């Protein structure tokens, strides 16, 4: 039986970590994810977990400690945001290339500068090609559920990749909302014990981890990572199926909300998907055939499946909560458009960069996107495919 509770997104992530009871947590505090290691350290102090908590002096060391722990054969977790992730950057690549299934709770925040502690996805987008599995969460429930599924996915022998669970800083991390929790013993059973095949502390099999990888090997090792990322898709679906059998809560690679019979749709990630659902409900009452595709699994990117799901639409808007500053559009937009092109799905697509640095995204703004899409459908014209939503402009 699920337990009815109310928790913030950070409390939800910390609760999942408590129930997982990893061998090692190494973390350095940074807003808005600070509460996660803070709550976790009280669990350690109160004897609710038997985790080795390493209070490191920087995020670079936090990821390094997780790498050391995982290589030794332990299960390691950490949490961070924005500039904390930036400082980890070197070790982020090392974690994935050493095929260490570390789990990171990333509470999304704008990367400086100028200094801003509020939500956008620029931190996550900065590591989108680093070889980590990336799951996005609409609310506290999904942050909790994704964390409970994380180890089963990352530690699968066909995958062996690190995984980050993303949620929106402040918007969900600091908002108290209803949540269904699972029993400790059930979580333990679902997550299972970690028995790595190869690890440093195995005296029966002496190995080296992370030595020099010269011209004759690195290419093949990278290809191995790429294969693992492709294989992760099926593993995620299988774990999600098992999770649904247990909790009744359904997860796929993405969520389709009233998309089947929709004519126009928004593609986005994290909390804005919730606001979009509320707008869709209103629009549907007015007869507008609006829908949503919420990306849950951003890496591996489910390109074929997304192209199939969007192929029947008359116009699509992709919302990016990070500007790639590349003069052609945001990262999610590029991913969606290229998979549509490859799958030969000719649907007009526009991109909106929105919510930068914590700018609130309102229902009215989401409604205006659907209005724009109706306009595109009726005129067949897209003047500027790379736009802003909620940007304040100076009067001319």
């Amino acid at each position, binding site marked *: 039986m699920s337990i009815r509770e*109310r928790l913030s997104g950070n409390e939800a992530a910390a609760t999942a970590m408590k129930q997982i009871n990893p061998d090692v947590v190494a973390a350095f505090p940074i807003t808005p994810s600070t509460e996660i290691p803070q709550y976790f350290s009280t669990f350690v102090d109160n004897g609710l977990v038997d985790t080795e908590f390493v209070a490191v002096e920087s995020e670079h060391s936090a990821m390094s400690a997780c790498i050391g722990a995982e290589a030794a054969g332990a299960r390691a977790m950490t949490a961070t945001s924005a500039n904390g992730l930036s400082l980890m950057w070197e070790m982020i690549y090392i974690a994935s290339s050493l095929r260490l299934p570390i789990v990171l709770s990333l509470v999304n925040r704008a990367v400086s500068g100028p200094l801003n502690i509020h939500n956008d996805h620029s931190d996550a987008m900065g590591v989108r090609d680093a070889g980590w599995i990336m799951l996005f969460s609409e609310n506290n429930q999904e942050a909790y559920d994704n964390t409970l599924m994380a180890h089963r996915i990352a530690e699968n022998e066909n995958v062996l990749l690190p995984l980050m669970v993303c949620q929106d800083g402040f918007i969900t991390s600091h908002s108290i909302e209803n949540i269904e929790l699972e029993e400790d013993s059930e979580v333990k059973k679902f997550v299972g014990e970690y028995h790595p095949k190869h690890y440093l502390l195995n005296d029966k099999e002496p190995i080296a981890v992370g030595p020099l990888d010269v011209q004759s090997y690195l290419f093949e090792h990278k290809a191995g990572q790429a294969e693992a990322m492709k294989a992760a898709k099926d593993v995620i679906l299988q774990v999600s199926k098992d999770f649904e059998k247990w909790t009744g809560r359904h997860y796929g690679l993405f969520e389709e909300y009233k998309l089947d019979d929709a004519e126009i749709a928004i593609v986005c990630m994290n909390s804005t998907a*919730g606001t979009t659902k509320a707008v869709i409900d209103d629009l549907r009452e007015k007869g507008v055939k609006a829908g949503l595709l919420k990306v849950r699994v951003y890496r591996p990117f489910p390109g074929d499946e997304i192209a199939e799901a969007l192929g029947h639409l008359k116009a699509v808007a992709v919302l990016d909560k990070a500007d790639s500053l590349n003069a052609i559009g945001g990262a999610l937009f590029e991913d969606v458009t290229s998979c549509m092109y490859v799958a030969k799905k000719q649907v007009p697509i526009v991109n909106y960069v929105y919510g930068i640095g914590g700018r609130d995204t309102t*229902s009215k703004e989401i409604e205006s996107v659907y209005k724009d899409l109706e306009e595109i459908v009726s005129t067949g014209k897209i003047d500027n495919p790379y736009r802003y939503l909620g940007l304040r402009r100076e009067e001319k």
Partner: protein
Amino acid sequence: MNDLIEIRWHGRGGQGAKTASLLLADAAFNTGKYIQGFPEYGPERMGAPITAYNRISSKPITIHSNIYEPDYVVVVDDTLLESVPVTAGLKTSGAIVINTTKSADYLKKVLKGYEGGIYTIDARKVSMETLGKYFPNTPMLAAIVKVSQIMSDEDFINDMKGSFKHKFAKKPEVIDGNMKALEMALKEVNKIQ
């Protein structure tokens, strides 16, 4: 979503508006509702204007934005009335609840002709008489429950006993005073005609 109630809190850093919004979310949660309680984080300093929000509904709440057209507004500090547009977007079918001893004429003037309900409470008096210190958030919490009728006074009082026991686990001596503050505040809310 007709039964969705949206509340906006205005206070100053250190007065407990954020805590009050979280306690209200807690109380509504305990009556079986779906809830949201969240502050708008700005530069956090003692005394700076802060905003916090509540959504309460009998159905799951998916919307994740600030609240622009609230049903109710709570003003924890009346010095904000002239500097913050507290009635912005406030529905005329709703109400504003203000911690103040200012005159009805003054309030009508600063609220710029707001046509919904205007309620006042002297949270300083309630707090000083029951707690011996000025903590306006506890009386304001009771005041908004009274005005919005999110739950019955009785359910609210019973529920808060449990919440305070949890919240003040390390300071049990303040539980009685806070309970008295709630009970007194429920009786001290005035409607301005």
